[in-house]
């Protein structure tokens, strides 16, 4: 079984400030981890993914995430946000050998001018 927890349903942050969106997962096997972004009225788009190797993963639009196996976390960070980053962000996990991807409940990032 696998699950994903995104503790923050909404995160307001001022423009040009740093942000961290938290994600914790649970799985009985090794995992692949993903962050997706959903802009208003659009489908989901991949931001970045962790497959193996380096625990720091860089993605599009200046985002990065760090895989922490001991804390079963995969938090998403950006050093300076823009208005255009306002969107819903989803963390997702797929256990190796499993067919299903499980998504978290999403975190709404609101960038304040």
């Amino acid at each position, binding site marked *: 079984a696998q699950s994903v927890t995104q503790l923050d349903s909404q995160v307001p942050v001022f423009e040009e400030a740093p942000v961290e969106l938290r994600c914790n997962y649970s799985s009985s096997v090794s995992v*692949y981890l*993903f962050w*997706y972004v*959903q802009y208003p*009225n*659009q*489908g*989901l*788009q*991949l931001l970045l*993914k962790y*497959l193996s190797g380096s625990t720091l993963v860089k993605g599009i639009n200046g985002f990065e995430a760090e895989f922490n196996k001991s804390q079963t976390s995969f938090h998403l960070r950006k050093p300076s946000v823009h208005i255009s980053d306002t969107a*819903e962000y*989803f963390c997702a996990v*797929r256990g*190796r*050998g*499993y*067919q*299903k*991807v499980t*998504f978290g*409940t*999403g975190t*709404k990032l609101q960038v304040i001018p």
Partner: protein
Amino acid sequence: DTAVSQTPKYLVTQMGNDKSIKCEQNLGHDTMYWYKQDSKKFLKIMFSYNNKELIINETVPNRFSPKSPDKAHLNLHINSLELGDSAVYFCASSRAETASYEQYFGPGTRLTVT
């Protein structure tokens, strides 16, 4: 070029009707999915097909029936629509169902049942 497309984008219908949503991908992927996103943005997988074969079938009412005529298409037919079926339905595709490859999502179909 649109990678994953869905039609229609909006669908408003009355309770008890039957409706279909179509999905097509031009990425050459062999696996396709249907997800339901409710009003709280919770995203839940419904079905997955690999090379036209059903591989994931979550606990979904049997009023929902997926059909995959070929690798590039996965349609969703819904019988006897209910108010609770109102949601955004997303189609997605990926290269292989057991690998790490990410999923590519369509723009969604907003279904409103009145």
